[in-house]
Structure formats: structure tokens, C-alpha cells
């Protein structure tokens, strides 16, 4: 993309300070929204823009806002900044380098949803990010972009930066709400969906950082401009985090619909040291891995679904030849086992068994029937766990067995791992 939109302030000195943000054209969309739009008109605008949630699920943001029950107040908006899906680091970049862009997006979105209080739930480990957000909220209040009677509009908004304390499950929206209410981060049963009954059992909208970050641009430049980028069903710019075996890992902004190969070769500098690619996890650790013959797939919700995987959070993890797939998958299984909240049995027990069996295969103590046993356990978790975490644990296991069953068998038959240490 010639001119970045979402990343336009990243790399600019002191981009986290309000003066720099305003100088570069920031805080123009908020006064415009307050002056020229009534809240339902903003909801309609975002619906027409086709903006889809950037946290992983891809649900249309305006449609979600439209689910708020009429006439029920107070309403809350929660910005999900609990970025924790392995391979994902885009929200951290936005928060650290452009916190005011996020705050402007939150303020407009709150006005659209008629919420008078917003929470930014940021993962506890993001110390720099939390400090920058605290500072930015303070600055925005001083300049009249937050607080009472914003820009003379009569609209009030209070934003609280709330820090998590280390739990992946709190990125799941209902787990996040339980955590924000002061509990263990256990997910809640849906329905009721948070839009009708969320935080403190009040109507609540939960959007990802990047989703909210898109909103000021849509207000300023219009829905038609927004839909001119990307594909028909996946409009707009998207941040991709690319990591693993590439020469220039990092966060890149591309229109949805860009080929995966373009991201890897033209942006990320190609495979690390020219090492052939063995597999790619295209959308964060939970999305099924694909093999090199799929590198021409385009990065959008529909095309990746067609390739049997998902766009997810836009976190592309490139795995080069020479990497042991079983070990990589074992490590991911260890993650899900550690992060399972323990509330439901299929996930709590299932993720533990997935790891145990993968571990024994990697250690050379596996049996041939273990491979199908893994699939059987996946079948007992999939669709049967209380929240999406259980399902998320299956992507790497099932896809790796589909593409690399032979490698699993090699471990079993050779009583050990045929690869050298990683890295």
C-alpha cells in the first residue's frame, strides 16, 4: 500500500503525544462526528463501510452496534486490548505509537453507541502501552476530547484504562467482562450476548483495538472511500503481523485481499536466509496451518476460509524447512493447556491430553495409534467446549496431522525427533 492509513503515525517521533497527533491531522473526525452525525447515523455509516471486527472473528462492527437494545442505559463500550494470540503484535504497535488514534476511535464509537463510559482492557504485560494510554487519556481530557461536554457538544465520556494480569482467556469477550468485574476470567454463557447484557449486566459493546482505530478514518473520509479498498466482502486496510522464518518480520498494512506471497516476499523480505517454507500459520496460532502450494491465497476472510483456514487476527507465522512440526504443535498445545480456564471439561481435560500425547510423540515414546487418538480428542473438544478456546486449540493439531502425518509417524517409528534443536 502506497500510503499507510492505520500506521500513518508509526515511526514519527513522539507520535504518542497529543500535539504531534493533532499536528498530523488527528482529532478532526471526533468533532465532525459530534457535529454532523446523530448516533444512529454513525452506526449506519459504519455498517455501510463494511468494517469487520479485527480481533479475529471478523463480525461486522456496525451490525454489532445495531444489536444494542433501544432505550436501555447505561451502556458501556469495552476496547479489547488483551492481545495474546501467539504471533499477534499489531495492537501493541497502535497503542504504543498512536494511542490518541485509538482514543479518538473509542470516543466516536461510544458516541455512536450512546455509551458514557468506556474501558480499555489492556493486557497487564503491556506496561509501555498502558502508560501511554493513561497519559493520552489525561491529555485528551485536558484538551476537551474526553470528559464532560466534549467539544461543546453536551456529550460526556469517561475512559478507564484497566490492566489485565496475565490470562489469554480474557481476550475472549465474556471472559474479559468477568475479569473486568473483578473475577477469574471465566467466560459467560451466550446468549445473552454482551450487546444486550454485558458488563455489570448492562448493554456492552466490545471491539478490538484495530477495529476501533478504523472508525475515525471512516468518519472523515466516508464509507465509499473505505469500501474502495480491499475486497467486496472484506473492505478496508488490515494490519498483518508476520513473524517466524522471514527476513523482515514486523507489522505491515495491506488492503484485505493481498496475496500471502506478496506479504512474505515483498514486505517481509522473503523466507529467512532463503530457507524453503514448510508451512504457514496465516491468522494467529489457532488457525489451521497451510502448506507452500497455498501461498497464492489472498489474505481475506473468504479466500482463507476457502483454503480451509482463517484470517483470524492477521498474524502470519512462517515456518521454514528444518523445523519439527510436531515440536511446534506441541508448544502450541502447551499454550492452550496452560491458558484453558478450567471451567469446562472438554477444554480443561482435552487440552491437557493433547499436550501429553504430543509430548510423548516428540520424546520418542509415542504409539502409531496416538495420531488418531489426537484426532479423536479434537473431535471431543470441537463444538463441545464452553467458549472458543477449546476450538482454538484444535487448529494446529488437526491441520498438522492432515499435512504432516508422515512426520508424526517418523517420530513414532524412529523413537525420537529426527530434527535438530530449533532456532
Amino acid at each position, binding site marked *: 500500500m502506497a500510503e499507510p492509513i492505520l500506521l500513518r503515525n508509526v515511526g514519527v517521533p513522539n507520535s504518542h503525544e497529543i500535539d504531534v497527533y493533532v499536528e498530523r491531522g488527528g482529532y478532526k473526525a471526533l468533532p465532525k462526528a459530534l457535529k454532523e452525525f446523530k448516533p444512529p447515523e454513525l452506526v449506519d455509516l459504519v455498517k455501510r463501510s463494511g468494517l469487520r471486527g479485527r480481533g479475529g472473528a471478523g463480525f461486522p462492527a456496525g451490525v454489532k452496534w445495531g444489536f444494542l437494545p433501544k432505550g436501555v442505559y*447505561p451502556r458501556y463500550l469495552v476496547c479489547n486490548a488483551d*492481545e*495474546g*494470540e*501467539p*504471533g*499477534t*503484535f499489531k*495492537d*501493541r504497535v497502535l497503542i504504543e505509537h498512536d494511542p490518541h488514534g485509538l482514543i479518538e476511535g473509542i470516543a466516536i464509537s461510544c458516541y455512536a453507541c450512546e455509551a458514557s*463510559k468506556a474501558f480499555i482492557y489492556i*493486557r*497487564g*504485560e*503491556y*506496561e*509501555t502501552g498502558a502508560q501511554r494510554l493513561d497519559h493520552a487519556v489525561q491529555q485528551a481530557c485536558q484538551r476537551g476530547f474526553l470528559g464532560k461536554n466534549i467539544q461543546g457538544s453536551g456529550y460526556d465520556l469517561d475512559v*478507564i484504562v*484497566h*490492566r*489485565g*494480569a*496475565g*490470562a*489469554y482467556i480474557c481476550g475472549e469477550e465474556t471472559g474479559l467482562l468477568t*475479569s*473486568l*468485574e*473483578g*473475577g*477469574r*476470567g471465566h467466560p459467560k454463557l451466550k446468549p445473552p450476548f454482551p450487546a444486550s447484557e454485558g458488563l*455489570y449486566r448492562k448493554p456492552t459493546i466490545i471491539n478490538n483495538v484495530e477495529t476501533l482505530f478504523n472508525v475515525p478514518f471512516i468518519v472523515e473520509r466516508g464509507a465509499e472511500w473505505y469500501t474502495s479498498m480491499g475486497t467486496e466482502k472484506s473492505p478496508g486496510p488490515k494490519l498483518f*503481523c*508476520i*513473524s*517466524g*522464518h522471514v527476513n523482515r*518480520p*514486523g*507489522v505491515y498494512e495491506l488492503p484485505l485481499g493481498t496475496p500471502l506471497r506478496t506479504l512474505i516476499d515483498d514486505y517481509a523480505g522473503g523466507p529467512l536466509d532463503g530457507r524453503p517454507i514448510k508451512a504457514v*500459520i496465516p491468522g494467529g*496460532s489457532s488457525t489451521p496451518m497451510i502448506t507452500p502450494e497455498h501461498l497464492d491465497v489472498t489474505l481475506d476472510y473468504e479466500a482463507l476460509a476457502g483454503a480451509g483456514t482463517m484470517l483470524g487476527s492477521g*498474524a502470519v*507465522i512462517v*515456518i*521454514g524447512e528444518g*523445523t519439527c512440526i510436531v515440536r*511446534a504443535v506441541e*508448544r*502450541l498445545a502447551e*499454550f492452550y493447556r*496452560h*491458558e484453558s*480456564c478450567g471451567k469446562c471439561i472438554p477444554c480443561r481435560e482435552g487440552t491437557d491430553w493433547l499436550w501429553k500425547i504430543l509430548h510423548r510423540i516428540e520424546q520418542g515414546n509415542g504409539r502409531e495409534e496416538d495420531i488418531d487418538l489426537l484426532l479423536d480428542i479434537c473431535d471431543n473438544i470441537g463444538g463441545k467446549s464452553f467458549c472458543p478456546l477449546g476450538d482454538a486449540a484444535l487448529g494446529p493439531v488437526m491441520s498438522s496431522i492432515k499435512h504432516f502425518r508422515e512426520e508424526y509417524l517418523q517420530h513414532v517409528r524412529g523413537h525420537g525427533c529426527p530434527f535438530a*534443536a*530449533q*532456532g
Partner: protein
Amino acid sequence: MLSDKARAEIQQLKARYPHPNSALLPALALAQEETGWLSPEALEEVAEAMGLSPAQVGSVASFYTMFNRRPVGRYLVQVCTNISCSLLGAEHIVEHLKRRLGIEVGQTTSDGLFTLVEVECLGSCGTAPMMQVNDVYYENLTEERVDQILEELRRQ
């Protein structure tokens, strides 16, 4: 003992939220800041300040990895070993730290300076491998860089 300052801050936090229970995580973080970990006594004091039962506070504290329920060294060295970091050699970084510090993962050096742990993804995958020491991220690690960092920390 929880300081008077921390107690006052907890009361302010309770008033900041629509429901006072929302202040529990920040309150636990405040208590941990004072002593480096959450002792059973600290949990009881937080419970008292929050107006919650010690069992509830203990249950919440035990859910989150950032709350230390046993003492840790002055520097908590947390190495990410999740996929992107391990693809780029996180295991070597852990082995190197074990050798340099003379401890296993989960242990604290006898001088009380360093505790070594492995952690899950910290959102630093584009600058892997990485570790977080207390609040600070150290990225693009090599064994030489790790040695420098340990040396700097020892001098502080």
C-alpha cells in the same frame, strides 16, 4: 503490611468504577508492587480493603500469571518460548540463562537477584526472541545481548 498509601489508592479505585469489585485486579497489582509478591497476609489485607472474602481474593489472584504467590528475585526474568520466539531460538536463550544464572527454570539465584521463568506470547513476535525483566521488554536477543543485560542488571 499494605501501606496507608496503597489502602487509600484502593479506596479511590473502588470509587472509580461503576462496581467496586472491578478494582480487585488493580488492587492486587498495587499490593504486589509493594512487596514483589502476594503473601497470604497481603491477600487478606487486600480482601479487607476491598470488602471481599479472603477466599474470593485468593481465588482471583491464583487465576492470573502475573500475580506471584511466592517470593521472586529482584529481577523476574521471563523468557517467551511460544512459537515465534522458539522458531528463532528461544530454547537456546533459556539454556544460556540457566547456565549463566546457575539455576533451573522456576528457581531463584541464591543471592535473591534473579528468578527465571518461561512465559507465553508477550506480543513481541516480530522482534523475537525476547524476554521481559520485571516490566521491561528486551527484544532481538542473542546470547551476547543476554550477558550484557544480566551485567547491567547486576550493576543497578
